């Protein structure tokens, strides 16, 4: 290594002699007054470092590395380029060198810079090996680095090297707790190490070991149990945890144990029953607030069935909430109450005032927690009161929190398709009220909910249109950019549900008021469309009204004349009903029905000839200019409206006097029918899965290849291409090829992507040649269905779309994962994580269930302990349980019959029994042969006498605790 460094542009001796130390660099940086000077100083330092770090002299190199580490860790300069130089320092015998190297490596670790770490495997192993010559000063950072940066492979390779440290018996080995933490990380990245690492970890829990190791181990188990999607594999360890819960004097340990039990108790009621007493004792006696709070949390999350415990915890929580002098405690108290939920709202009653006051606190953390608590307490009975209170409160609070309140209310009320809401009229008017909040900025959500409620809740529509009217009519709202989305929803509602409106003309005026030109075009388009709908509705109503008026006359005459001249009336009535089916009043229909009809007509007396013509004029003047609008959406709709007006004006009826033989005008009737049918169909909510339910046409062959592509491509990409005209496509594809060549090629993402999904990429040169062939292949551009055509579709996206798409879809745009389980966006991620967690749980379950000896041994000790206390016959009990456990563990895995063989060939059995994990097992083969030595020693003793024919159907968890 030194040779390679020397051969590359050798730094002069001067450099080495006059090298600036880290302190020098820091001083220079501190003395540089401006940002520019500082940047210059850093640039200079980096230049020096680049030179010095190649020096064959290790001291020079170490100092350079130290400086670089400083810059990287505090100024975030990329130091991945120096990763190899750091490794060069590892073998040095001078202690500071490898330490500097470890520090550098651990500061800069991330996947791209730890590619080189496997090169250091041997060196790491050497530093980990326990030998007198080897100081723990190196093993510690080695463990640290391994914990932070190890890849699955590296963890797998080095896991056996952790064993000597993990199982060291010397009580004060400072490395043991570190090794425990490292083992935890190794387990997390590489579940295959479970057979090797898990048992020593469990042993660290035992009483005899170093208290620091116990603390570290319990921390590790806490992490494992909390991270596991299913913590049931850890239940067999419950006795160990219980012992710690009862005996440990270390609050830190107790807190961790409680966290584990909070996870296990819901799975196993006997565990819960067992821990209630100790938890209550801790609650009563402990003076450490952190521990008390942890007890409260445990009770509220997992022991809600135990009333006494809940009561005690609630009392303690009230003390927390009531502590005025310590905001931290108040915050935690509120947090604890939030966990209780509506079922225990009695617990909150007493603290109600504090909660309300807390909404007013200057501290955002407390306010937020109080809000969360209020939201958690919402039920269908109190939702109206609490929400009204909050919305009023939001008007007074500061902008940020006001919107947080609105957000919370919207989210909670909208949850699960408004499951909390009973009175939708109230809710709709609440939505309208929210908009009036001066800090309002939640337009999108309100827009969605207004429309959604309209679609989903028929009964809310009259109120909805009232709210919409109030919003539309207020000119003050139009200038607010946060409101335009809400207004767009209101406009849509006003158009869609205009039949519930008392005064459609007023709506049109509101929609066309001058200030609407402040709205963005897409909202404007909705406005114009709403006008269109209202106009159509008004016109239809007007015509019908006139027709009904004519009918009325007939009806009146009918009534006046009585039954005497029925015959002639019948003819008249019939002639009118022939022409207008909608008003087909049967000849002999009772006069009651007619009366109802006439009533309704009288109610709608609002449409007069003048008012309609006034409406037409208004619309023409305002919408007219919009037909020249630059925005196509608006322009198109405006023209629609104008077209409709033109048709209306053309109709003959407009020229003649009102009420003149209208019913006989065929054209108008047809038009009315047409318009009615255009808007008659009710819009409903669309399920998000709707697309999936559409069955695939038989003729269409969905190539598997193509369905795989969905992971890489957005589905919207395939469609436009199928519809693009032929010549255009040719041009298009070559163009994107060029694009891809110039723009994307240098992109490292693409290279990475290509590596991973190479299957879906065409060869580079093939790519080019094929783009020329394309036209021929695509000659028949008819709607695609069979064999060859499908192939074309497959090729097409591969050729023209991937490069284009590679940017937006593939790299998740900077989604920060502070943790593997953030579960933020991509579903791939979460599933990947889950499967990993399952893998780990599975591996651990395997280890635990196979290691019967160990749990039951330790379990025995705990049994003795507990049973002495309870004065039970311990020995019988334990034997019974161990039998039970034996059978259970096999029953679990449904290998009851073959289990008699298992005892003898532990290793073989492993491979046989863990069907689904076979691959993993085989990978870890190497480790397990090593470790099986440990296992086997314990195994043999127990096997012989266990009754193996019992294979319970359901995996019953043995009661360790009794």
């Amino acid at each position, binding site marked *: 290594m030194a040779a390679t460094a020397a051969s590359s542009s050798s730094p002069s001796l001067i450099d080495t002699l006059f090298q600036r130390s*880290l*302190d020098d660099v*820091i001083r220079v940086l*501190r003395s540089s007054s401006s940002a520019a000077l500082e940047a210059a100083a850093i640039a200079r330092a980096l230049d020096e470092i680049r030179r010095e770090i190649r020096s064959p002299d290790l001291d020079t190199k170490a100092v350079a590395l*130290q400086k670089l*580490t*400083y810059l*990287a*860790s*505090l100024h*975030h300069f*990329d130091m991945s380029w120096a990763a190899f130089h750091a490794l060069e320092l590892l073998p040095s015998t001078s202690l*500071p060198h490898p*330490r*500097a190297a470890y*520090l550098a490596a651990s500061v800069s*670790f*991330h*996947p791209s810079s730890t590619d080189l770490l496997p090169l250091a495997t041997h060196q790491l192993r050497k530093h980990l090996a326990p030998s007198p010559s080897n100081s723990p*000063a190196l093993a*510690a*950072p080695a463990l*640290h680095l391994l*914990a*932070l940066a190890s890849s699955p492979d590296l963890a797998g390779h080095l896991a056996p090297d952790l064993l000597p440290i993990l199982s060291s018996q010397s009580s004060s080995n*400072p490395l043991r*707790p*570190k090794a425990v*933490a*490292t083992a*935890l990380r190794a387990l997390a990245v590489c579940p295959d190490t479970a057979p090797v690492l898990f048992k020593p970890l469990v042993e660290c829990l035992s009483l005899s070991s170093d208290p*620091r190791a116990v*603390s*570290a181990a319990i*921390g*590790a188990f806490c*992490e494992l149990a*909390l991270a596991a999607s299913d913590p049931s594999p850890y239940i067999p360890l419950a006795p160990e945890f219980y012992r710690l819960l009862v005996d440990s004097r*270390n609050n*830190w340990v107790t*807190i961790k144990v409680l*966290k584990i039990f909070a996870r296990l108790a819901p799975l196993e009621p006997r565990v819960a029953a067992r821990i209630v007493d100790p938890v209550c004792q801790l609650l009563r006696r402990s003076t450490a*607030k*952190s521990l008390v*709070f*942890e007890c409260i949390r445990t009770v509220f999350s997992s022991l809600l069935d135990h009333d006494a415990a809940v009561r005690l915890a609630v009392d303690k929580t009230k003390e927390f909430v009531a502590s005025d002098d310590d*905001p*931290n405690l108040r*915050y*935690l108290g509120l947090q604890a109450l939030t966990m209780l939920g509506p079922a225990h709202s009695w617990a909150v009653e007493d603290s109600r005032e504090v909660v309300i006051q807390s909404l007013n606190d*200057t*501290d955002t*953390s*407390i306010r*937020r927690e109080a809000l969360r608590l209020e939201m958690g307490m919402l039920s269908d009975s109190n939702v109206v009161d609490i929400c009204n209170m909050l919305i009023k409160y939001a008007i007074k609070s500061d902008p940020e929190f006001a919107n947080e309140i609105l957000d919370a209310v919207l989210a909670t009320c909208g949850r699960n398709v408004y499951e909390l809401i009973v009175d939708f009229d109230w809710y709709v008017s609440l939505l309208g009220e929210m908009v009036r909040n001066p800090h309002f900025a939640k337009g999108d959500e309100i827009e969605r909910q207004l429309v959604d409620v309209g679609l989903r809740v028929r009964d809310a529509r009259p109120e909805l249109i009232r709210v919409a009217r109030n919003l539309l009519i207020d000119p003050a709202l139009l200038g607010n950019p946060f409101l335009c989305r809400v207004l767009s929803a209101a406009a849509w509602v006003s158009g869609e549900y205009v039949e519930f409106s008392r005064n459609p003309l007023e709506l049109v005026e509101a929609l066309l008021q001058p200030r609407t030109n402040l709205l963005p075009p897409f909202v404007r388009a909705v406005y114009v469309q709403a006008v269109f709908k209202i106009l159509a509705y008004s016109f239809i109503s007007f015509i019908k009204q006139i027709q009904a008026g004519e009918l009325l006359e007939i009806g009146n005459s009918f009534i006046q004349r009585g039954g005497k001249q029925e015959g002639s009336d019948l003819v008249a009535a019939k002639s009118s009903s022939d022409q207008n089916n909608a008003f087909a009043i049967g000849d002999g229909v009772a006069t009651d029905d007619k009366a109802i009809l006439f009533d309704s007509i009288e109610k709608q007396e609002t449409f007069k000839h003048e008012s309609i013509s006034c409406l037409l004029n208004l619309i023409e003047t305002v919408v007219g200019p919009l037909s020249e609008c630059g925005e196509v959406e608006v322009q198109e709709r405006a023209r629609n409206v104008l077209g409709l007006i033109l048709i209306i004006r053309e109709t003959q009826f407009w020229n003649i006097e009102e009420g003149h033989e209208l019913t006989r005008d065929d054209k108008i009737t047809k038009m009315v029918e047409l318009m009615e049918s255009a808007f008659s169909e009710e819009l409903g909510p669309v399920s998000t899965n709707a697309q999936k339910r559409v069955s695939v046409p038989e003729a269409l062959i969905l190539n598997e290849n193509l369905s795989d592509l969905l992971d890489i491509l957005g589905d919207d990409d395939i469609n436009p291409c199928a519809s693009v005209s032929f010549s255009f496509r040719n041009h298009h594809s070559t163009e994107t090829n060029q694009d891809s060549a110039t723009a994307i090629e240098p992109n490292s993402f693409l290279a990475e992507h290509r590596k991973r999904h190479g299957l879906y990429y065409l060869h580079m040169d093939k790519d080019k040649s094929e783009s020329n062939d394309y036209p021929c292949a695509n000659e028949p551009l008819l709607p695609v269905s069979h064999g060859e055509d499908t192939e074309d579709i497959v090729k097409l996206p591969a050729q023209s779309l991937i490069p284009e798409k590679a940017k937006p879809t593939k790299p998740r745009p900077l989604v*920060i*994962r*502070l*943790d593997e389980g953030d579960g*933020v966006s991509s579903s791939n991620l979460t599933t990947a994580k889950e499967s990993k967690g399952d893998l780990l749980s599975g591996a651990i379950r395997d280890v635990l269930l196979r290691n019967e000896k160990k749990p039951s041994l330790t379990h025995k000790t705990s049994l003795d302990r507990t049973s002495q206390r309870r004065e039970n016959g311990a020995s019988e009990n334990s034997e019974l349980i161990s039998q039970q456990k034996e059978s259970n563990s096999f029953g679990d895995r449904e290998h009851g019959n073959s289990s008699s063989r298992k005892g003898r060939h532990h290793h073989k059995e492993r491979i046989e029994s863990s069907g689904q994990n076979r691959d993993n097992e085989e990978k870890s083969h190497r480790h397990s042969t090593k470790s099986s030595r440990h296992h086997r020693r314990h195994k043999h003793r127990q096997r012989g006498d266990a009754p193996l024919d019992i294979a319970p159907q359901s995996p019953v968890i043995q009661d360790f605790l009794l």
Partner: protein
Amino acid sequence: MIRFILLQNRQGKTRLAKYYIPLEDSEKHKVEYEVHRLVVNRDPKHTNFVEFRTHKVIYRRYAGLFFSMCVDITDNELAYLECIHLFVEILDHFFSNVCELDLVFNFHKVYLILDEFILAGEIQETSKRAIIERMGELEKQE
């Protein structure tokens, strides 16, 4: 587990940053900026806990320095608050009356102390005495 630990002064200059999760450099920068903004304007009478993305930051101010620790949402706040205090006590003892400059010029030693205290996001040692002894040994070796 602990996701990261930051020591920042009131101006937002980072004096120590230790990440226990892999983050890109740019992301670290952003995180530090955001955490500083979260904690710097808080009143001393406020809680020591702030929500940060999907985690929470437990912070404590000592003179002009903010010690911030990002932990999981389920972690015990008070316990970590104690940890911060313990860490500061250790620093104080080690540098005898610690000040910001000590941290600036002994930055690798601060890392050493921190590594004795916390490893891989897990608290290793809760005894002040033990850590100080270990540090003494390391000093001798170097």
